[in-house]
């Protein structure tokens, strides 16, 4: 650290570590700076700077012949986001799927998380907690292909639905939404379960003592408390769906999503500026979303 004179306040300073320690104890601001220096440096320099660089690239163009990025400032790419019907169609489709997936995941996650937290005994709860986490370890791609098998015309779903006079959704937007919802469900259950664990038991007893039925208690007492956790889960499901381009390829039939357009532009067309411009769409959507839920405290529940 700095100099010896500044440790005067520490009477028992004998070793250098001790000196540093007491110096730090007396300088809260320095302590704070040391604590946040590394993480802020990392996030700021590695991530935020990269993000800003990408945004800048959106206003450049490429050399049509060699495909190299050129620094020619223009608004063509960004303007085309608004003028080209393709981009608005795909954006709306993607938002629609993401919203659907998010809502369904929350509806499925709530009863499970509630059952785990408030109904099940410790043993069942442990087993359930592990069972929820386990599928995360089966590769994403393997699960997507498993769903490809389930959804196919000769798949398990058809076998189950046929006697009921129904058909599998097959490879379609609906099929993709089911698969995506499946993929992200654990990410939604976990924060909601965490939120429920924080709900004090006596609060619920008070509610039922006052005559509230179980579902009234859930609706009036529990839901408001765990709302931030629900939103936290929704951020996962929504954002993961927003950028996906692999599942839609495997089970989505002939459809494409925003992720495909970005991926195609950087991979196929080698047009980084256009890809960057398209990336502005999910960034903008997520910023609006995060901005609107910021006050709920959801961001600390991820």
């Amino acid at each position, binding site marked *: 650290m700095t100099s010896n004179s500044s440790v005067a306040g520490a009477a028992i300073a004998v070793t250098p570590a001790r000196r540093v320690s007491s110096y730090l104890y007396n300088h809260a601001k320095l302590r704070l700076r040391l604590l946040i220096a590394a993480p802020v440096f990392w*996030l700021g320099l590695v991530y935020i700077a990269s993000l800003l660089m*990408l945004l800048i690239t959106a206003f450049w163009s490429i050399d049509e012949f060699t495909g190299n990025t050129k620094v020619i400032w223009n608004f063509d790419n960004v303007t085309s986001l608004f003028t080209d019907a393709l981009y608005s169609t795909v954006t709306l489709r993607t938002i629609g799927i993401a919203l659907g997936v998010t809502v369904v995941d929350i509806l499925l996650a709530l*009863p499970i998380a509630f059952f785990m937290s408030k109904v099940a005994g410790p043993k069942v709860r442990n087993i359930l907690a592990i069972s929820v986490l386990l599928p995360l370890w089966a590769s994403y791609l*393997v699960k997507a*292909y498993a769903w490809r098998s389930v959804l196919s015309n000769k798949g398990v779903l058809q076998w189950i639905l046929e006697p009921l006079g129904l058909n599998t959704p097959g490879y379609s937007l609906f099929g993709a939404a089911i698969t995506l919802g499946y993929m992200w469900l654990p990410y939604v259950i976990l924060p909601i379960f965490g939120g429920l664990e924080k709900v004090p038991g006596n609060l619920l007893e008070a509610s039922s003592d006052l005559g509230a039925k*179980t579902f009234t208690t859930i609706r009036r007492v529990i839901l408001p408390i765990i709302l931030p956790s629900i939103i936290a889960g929704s951020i996962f499901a929504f954002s*993961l769906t927003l950028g996906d381009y692999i599942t839609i390829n495997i089970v989505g039939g002939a459809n494409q999503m925003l992720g495909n357009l970005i991926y195609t532009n950087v991979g196929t067309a080698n047009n980084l500026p256009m890809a960057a411009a398209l990336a502005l769409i999910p960034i903008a959507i997520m910023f609006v979303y995060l901005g609107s839920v910021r006050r709920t405290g959801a961001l600390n529940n991820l």
Partner: protein
Amino acid sequence: MRISRSAALVLGVISSAVMAAVYLPLVIVLINSFNNSMNMDWPPPGFTLDWWVKAFGSGGLMAALGTSVLIAICASVVALILGTLLALALSRYKFFGQESIGLMVILPIALPGIVTGLALNNAFRTVLGMQLSMATVIIAHATFCIVTVYNNVLARLSRANRNLEDASADLGAGVFTTFRLITLPQIGSALVAGGLLAFALSFDEIIVTTFTAGSGVETLPIWILNNMFRPGKAPVVDVVAVTTVLISVVPLYFAQRFTRETAK
């Protein structure tokens, strides 16, 4: 809370049904790992152990597994350090810009992977002129893993008893001693939970990895993706999935027990 029997029953039935649906595709993966059709025909025309033998005899698979574990460990360690530092700072101090930092830490996970991947790819290659390598994957993974550690530790710190830290300081313990003897034990289970989630996130990540991995770097998900394109290799990846799920039971079980015990 007193939950009516019928409500408990309804919740139980819903939970079981959803969990059954969650495991159905995994059961199919398990069955397909013994399916003797290399295209995973359904229902399986016959039974074979070939894929299991092939999987464990595949040097490429084992190498990819090693790469993935190494990357996940490194990324988790970086995330554990940075996430803990940040959580300590934000829980113990009030300062200007606190909210922006809180936002900054969740951005890498809140923004879709393709955005994160593209941004980092662009920064590494064109801005910094770096060659993509294993290090670039670790940097990228650590970036989006910080938030899992940060949130777990922050939640634990907000519930932790601060008087203990003050008492420790009053009794003459330095800041490092206090951290080691008082704070660290309190956040231990949060570190395990956060670290494990970080490991899992990194281990199965494919989109950011695709954009940040160098030429020689083949993680398990990338190996799987490449094998989907190879003739007659598909069921081997099912073996991989079944195995990783089975292996992961062990750390999950202990983490669960550890978290429970320390939480009590």
